[in-house]
């Protein structure tokens, strides 16, 4: 039999139901692998005792014939951004050092109610600001993949970010699945870099309650898994209306796995001209074309579309997201929770606390956000960016009159070596050039591993759907997964 940790969530669910193994055995197998893979630094906090308790409770439920569904007994990693009661929840920031929430986020509570098991908390870019998982206060996370050739051969590679710990954990088989959050690409880009599936749902699909806020109009939780089917299963557990989040949407949560019909005949797939950008490596262009061919061979209709404001999404994002971050992060004042550094007076205490508690990138974004919201600049920067955002959203609306999903590459490069791009903020921001537009428009999007680069590193394809069009996105992603037959492992 295959190793228990090699099973997908769907396969493990079948094995648990058949009594081939228990949730406790599955959990123990993961805990053992986690210990062996500590060098990746994916988890900063492991919760073995809680995991075993939860697994035993799942086995007891199953024994009584009360197993609650496809997530019962499934061991998961949780991104540090989610508040978990009694378990460190720090946004991977010094300013929240030692913070143990006295409440549980809605999304994680739903997962525990569905019977899932908490293996531990995964490291991330501090406050979800980053694309390489190098700004965590727990140190960088290492991608389990290594380049087989080229300049980076043998070097430690970044896992992407901000959900880098979650993506690395799923790729390294030290979690069956993981939660992530995506503000501008933080689920999809690390998914692509680590060769796993990353799904960002429509804004409003999952409750944001209990998720440490970065940019509230963009933040959205979603699953990181090894297969599209697993993403569909996990999203079913995470999604749903929550009275505690006024932006969560009161729509029924379908069984997303029923979308995976393997039949995309007649599906209209849009290919946007503006995503052909100068400097994109030829192998990424080629993989994109391969994706078009796969969908076409499966009976989809290919439609050339235009999203004219694509290139403005990233600069607009770097006004809107820092502006919201500067407001959200004002709460870290050293008075009610987290770090406090005593100063000469109250203001000095605030300033010393925030100087010591926030890392360089977080401070940079708070400063940018403060500036663009300050008197005299609000119209020129913030309102302008929100107007451009309307334009971006309109682009997608008119494109979706002629197509059902949009296919693009996920990232403009593979994972890069640790230490690269870290001195130039804009070079780092450009990682998200293909993922940010969908974020700005609040649309569902997924990254599916679709091939390897010449250097043996994973590459992802990216599908974007209309608002609440997760099912079409999953159906097309499932077809890419079948056609690509991606079975490479780190």
């Amino acid at each position, binding site marked *: 039999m295959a190793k228990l940790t090699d099973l997908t969530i769907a396969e493990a669910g079948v094995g648990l139901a058949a009594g081939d193994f228990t949730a406790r055995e599955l959990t123990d197998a993961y805990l053992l692998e986690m210990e062996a893979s500590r060098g990746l630094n994916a988890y900063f906090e492991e919760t073995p005792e809680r995991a075993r308790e939860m697994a035993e409770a799942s086995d007891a439920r199953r024994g009584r014939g009360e197993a609650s569904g496809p997530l019962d007994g499934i061991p998961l990693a949780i991104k540090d951004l989610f508040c978990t009661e009694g378990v460190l929840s720090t946004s991977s920031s010094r300013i929240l050092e030692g913070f143990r929430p006295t409440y549980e986020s809605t999304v994680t509570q739903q997962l525990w109610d569905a019977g899932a098991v908490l293996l531990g908390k995964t490291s991330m870019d501090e406050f979800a600001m980053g694309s390489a998982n190098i700004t965590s206060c727990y140190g960088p996370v290492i991608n389990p993949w290594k380049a087989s050739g080229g300049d980076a051969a043998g070097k430690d590679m970044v896992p992407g970010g901000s959900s880098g710990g979650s993506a690395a954990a799923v790729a390294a088989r030290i979690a069956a699945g993981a939660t992530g959050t995506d503000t501008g690409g933080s689920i999809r880009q690390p998914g692509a870099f680590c060769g796993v599936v990353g799904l960002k749902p429509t804004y409003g699909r999952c409750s944001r309650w209990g998720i440490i806020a970065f940019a509230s*109009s963009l933040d959205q939780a979603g699953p990181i898994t090894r297969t599209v089917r697993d993403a569909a299963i996990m999203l079913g557990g995470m999604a749903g209306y929550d009275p505690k989040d006024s932006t969560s949407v009161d729509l029924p949560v379908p069984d997303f796995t029923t979308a995976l019909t393997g039949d995309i005949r007649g599906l209209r797939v849009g290919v946007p001209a503006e995503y052909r950008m100068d400097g994109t490596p030829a192998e990424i262009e080629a993989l994109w074309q391969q994706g078009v061919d796969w969908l076409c061979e499966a009976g989809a209709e290919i439609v050339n579309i235009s999203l004219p404001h694509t290139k403005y999404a990233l*600069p607009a994002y770097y006004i809107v997201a820092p502006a919201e971050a500067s407001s959200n992060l004002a709460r870290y004042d050293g008075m009610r929770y987290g770090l406090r550094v005593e100063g000469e007076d*109250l203001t000095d205490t605030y300033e010393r606390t925030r100087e010591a508690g926030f890392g360089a990138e977080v401070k940079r974004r708070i400063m940018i956000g403060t500036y663009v919201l300050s008197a005299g600049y609000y119209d020129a920067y913030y309102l302008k960016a929100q107007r451009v*955002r309307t*334009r971006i959203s309109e682009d997608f609306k008119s494109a979706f009159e002629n197509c059902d999903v949009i296919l693009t590459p996920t990232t403009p490069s593979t994972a890069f070596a640790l230490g690269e791009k870290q001195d130039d903020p804009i070079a780092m921001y450009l990682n998200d050039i293909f993922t940010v537009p969908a974020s700005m428009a609040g649309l569902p999007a997924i990254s599916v591993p679709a091939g390897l680069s010449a250097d043996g590193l994973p590459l992802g394809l990216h599908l974007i759907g209309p608002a609440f069009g997760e099912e079409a996105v999953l159906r097309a992603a499932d077809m890419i997964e079948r056609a690509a037959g991606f079975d490479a492992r780190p």
Partner: protein
Amino acid sequence: MALDTDTVKRIARLARIHVDEADLAPLADELNNILGWVEQLEEVDTDGVEPMTSVVEMVQRLRADEVTDGGVRDKVLANAPESDDGFFVVPKVIE
């Protein structure tokens, strides 16, 4: 609209982040670099375009004005850097 060090100092004060004098100039360069890059947004014609307020078309939800939570003083204080007798302890603000 390049930021000078005085402006950076003012922004840092507004953001309540201490910045050492020596770090103001390099920080100004970093911020100017980013602000220079976002200035390309001026190319976009946004005349008559409404600023985005919500990405999802939805009506603001209202709930009944009822108490649904509370009575959790110890939970609220559980992570305080300093607390005493059911209160947060903060630096002295009145002379």
